[in-house]
């Protein structure tokens, strides 16, 4: 009987034990997945070190939270690979006084990372359940400078515009005209291109008066693929 009890207790304890190592896992994530791939912005790195990613995923994904992968969060959505979050953050060049708009709250992780750096983050989620979950989560983690709204991200969040930067976390086949209107002159918008598991390409949009310039960024250490060796 004692043996059975022991097995039972161990069975409950085992999944909890790795909790002690999350800060180490986070540090390792920043070092091996983010810094090693060239992200240098100190504010971004500090934010990635601070935000507890394992609190933004479901119980089944907790042990994988710091892996070098995107993870499913339900409703066909994912929490992006840590490196992508860091790369997107770095590329909007966030500063302490900034007001940032995020389209696609998802788990709320990207908003939390931004909130560690900028003044205010407004984030819009179209899927009601995800939006509510993220709002509750961010509140419980004491993020006071993030506001979550459940709405169609196409329209942005006009009341708080213009924004210094806009991050669109869900891939879009077009750039909604209201978003570029809500971007400050000289502001930067970043959008991923590709399926959730294939986020290889990020698009940077820079506003200069009435003109826009896009740059397709490649967030992986890519060796030109022509085989010449």
């Amino acid at each position, binding site marked *: 009987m004692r043996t059975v009890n022991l097995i039972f207790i161990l069975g409950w304890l085992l999944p909890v034990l790795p909790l002690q190592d999350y800060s180490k896992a986070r540090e390792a994530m920043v070092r091996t997945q983010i810094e090693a791939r060239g992200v240098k912005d100190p504010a971004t790195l500090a934010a990635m070190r601070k935000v507890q990613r394992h609190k933004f995923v479901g119980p089944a994904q907790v042990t994988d939270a710091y892996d*070098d*992968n995107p*993870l*499913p969060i*339900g*409703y*066909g959505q994912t929490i992006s690979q840590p490196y992508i979050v860091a790369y997107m953050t770095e590329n909007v060049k966030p500063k302490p006084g900034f007001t940032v708009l995020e389209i696609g709250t998802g788990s709320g992780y990207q908003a939390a990372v931004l909130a560690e750096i900028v003044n205010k983050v407004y984030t819009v989620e*179209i*899927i*009601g359940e995800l939006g509510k979950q993220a709002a509750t989560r961010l509140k419980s983690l004491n993020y006071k400078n993030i506001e979550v709204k459940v709405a*169609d991200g*196409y329209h942005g969040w006009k009341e708080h515009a213009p924004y210094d930067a806009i991050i669109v976390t869900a*891939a879009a*086949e*077009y*750039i*909604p*005209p209201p978003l*570029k*209107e809500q971007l400050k002159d000289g502001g930067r918008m970043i959008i991923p*291109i*590709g*399926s*959730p*598991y*294939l986020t*290889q*390409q990020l*698009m940077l*949009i820079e506003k200069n008066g009435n*003109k*826009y*310039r*896009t*740059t*397709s*960024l*490649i967030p*992986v*250490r*890519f*060796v*030109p*693929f*022509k*085989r*010449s060796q």
Partner: protein
Amino acid sequence: MNKPGFSYRHRLMAAMALLSIALIAYQVAIIQILSYVQWYHFANVVISIALLGFGAAGTLLSLFRNRLLKHSDKLLPLLMTGCGLMMVVAVELSLSSLARFDSYLLFSARLQWLKLLANSLFYLLPFLLGALALGIVFIKYVQEIGNFYFSNLAGSGIGALFAAVLAGYLLPASIPYVLALIAVGAGLLVMQFKRPWYSIALILLLVLFIAYRINTPVTTTLSQYKSLSRTLNLPASRIALQKPGAYGLVQVVSADALRYAPGLSLAFNNEVPVNSAIFNNGDWFGPIDSWHASDSFHLLDYTTMAVPFVLKKRNKVLVLYAGSGLHVSQAIRQGASEVDAVEPHRGVGQLLLDELAGMNDSLYRRPGVQLYHTEPRSFLSSANKKYDLIQLHLVGAFGGGVGLYAMREEYSLTRQAFMNMWNLLEEDGVISVSAWMDYPYRNSLKLTATLAETLDETGITDPRLHLAAIRSWATVTYVIKKTAFSAQDIAAMRTFCNDYFFDPLFIPGLSRGERTLYNGISDSTFFVYQDELLTGDREKMYREYGFHIRPATDDKPYFSQFLRWKSLPRLADNFGSQTVSFLELGWLIAALSFLQITLLAVLLIMVPLFKPSTRGRNKGWTLIYFSGLGAGYMLLEIVLIQQFILFFGNPVYATAFVICIMMLASGAGSYYSTRLVPDRGIMQRILVMIFLLLLLYTFFLSPLLNKVDSYPGFIKIAISLVLVAGPAILMGMPFPLGLRKQAVKEEKNLPWAWGINGCVSVISASLAALLTVEAGFAAVILLAAIFYGLSMLSMYLIRG
């Protein structure tokens, strides 16, 4: 050997035919269901394992031959009704929340592999029981195998047609239940009514449940990653309309936040309209163009796809894969007077003509607009009109996709297709084709190569004067023109680029800095590769580039197949192993599926060899002869289906036609074989005839089909009948003759021989799909000929 009584024999033949109808149609139905809840490729993985039920039945028969044959009269009705019961149980279990798998999570959650395996095993059961019933009959009545094999093949042929007919009337989830009824009916036909009440009561219960399920189908929950699921997550989304059809389940979804504007220019400042959208088998088919004749703008005019209209007004326009009509309405908006729209999906076309006509201002009913339901290549072959513009669909998927279409024939993107289009152009006409920008670069490079080779073939010496391409942040649109671009054309394209923040990729007289004025690219090798393909050493690029970018041809019409095996390690280094899985998913799944089936099949074939009582002479002959027949037959069947898609202009009809005619003709051959003596000389002569016929097909089938492609429909059907039935009649003879020969030489080998044939058939179906992509149709037909040749030569191994 038992000889059944007259009436029983006929009932047994009828039951065999019914069971075969149910089994073939069930296979099609399961592929439909799994394609809907998951993707076609995973449906294939599940079904190919399930079909190994035939091989497993052979193994069981080998191991327990005497016991199974001794109780065959009781077992046959049990197995047939059991097969029907399992058809129901497998569907119920597979779609239950407990066993439902999500293929998108396979590479990130190990549990999904277990669920995939469980699904395969569920579906294996009906095939195993059904095949066991067929096998027992074949072995027990081997001297009359010709007749029973005829029943089996004729039933299979009818089953293929029946599946297509059922798909037109019932929801996918209801169809297996109808087929289960047929299998139960087969069981009832051969039931010995000694103590009927128990059996009848049980069967009645089953029938009642099946009837309930046909009326109230089991819930089908789609993968959360399918585009339909994601769209249904949008606020106020609903399925407004759904219609089953031979092409799949068509569903129309409306949602408040559903907008479609592919690669829209950043100069666009209007509201992007809300659309409804069409989904086919849960996959995105296209938006329903919410266009109205009085609209002040057309969305596509703010994309690179407007280039052909920037050059000149186009009066006569041909739109291939017109879908829900976005390019058609654009052409009308741009002043076209005649628009021919070709859309092979009859179900969608009909909806747009009728129920959905109100949504796009009856676009397809407008004067000057003509909708054709045929495969674009068939239309191109039979068209006798010249066009100012031939517009193709947008190639690839946003962001590059996950390679799910790698195994799909795309006859409208082959070199020959572009030549056909070129020949239909007016003197000043253009062909326009667009692609999503992807990374790593694939689609646009293959398009450049294809268009460059097309221009070469037309005799144009400097392709730079006839090819232009405009790039946005998301798409690139190519235009090839019969006459060289004029200074006016070039100026118009430059103005277009400046107005809409696009960049020229190719225009005559292009300066280097012009290419990235508005849309920069971090990896600028894109331009180096593009230039090399257009004017540099194209062959070297084909050889050295990490992906397969040589243009598709009619013999290898797989435009979206980019994977090169030798590049896999480097891809994994660059992108990470998990990403690579998604980069070329379609091809990898097919390869994985082939490997696992081969492994399982080899095991099934080998198991009986370890049982002493099954050991006997002529194992070598049995293995080679029946493997050769299984492989040769299946390879030819798959290639004929693929080749006749182009010929018939419709994949569903082509598949149903080829399977049905092949099976019926082979059934006739099998029936005729009862008059022949299973003598080595006769068997070898038949096999040599098949070998020679297939050798002829290797070299002349494609050219012949191309030659007669533009003939009237009834002549095409007559020619098709001869081409399919000709070899099939002969191919129906060696199997029953072989089993009869086996019965004389080493009867113990009979079940093993039948099992080998089943296993190798399944392996070959999987192999054929891979081989046609890599080596082309002709090579696969040649391989089929070689397999028949091997079977012929194996006859020399017969001892005793």
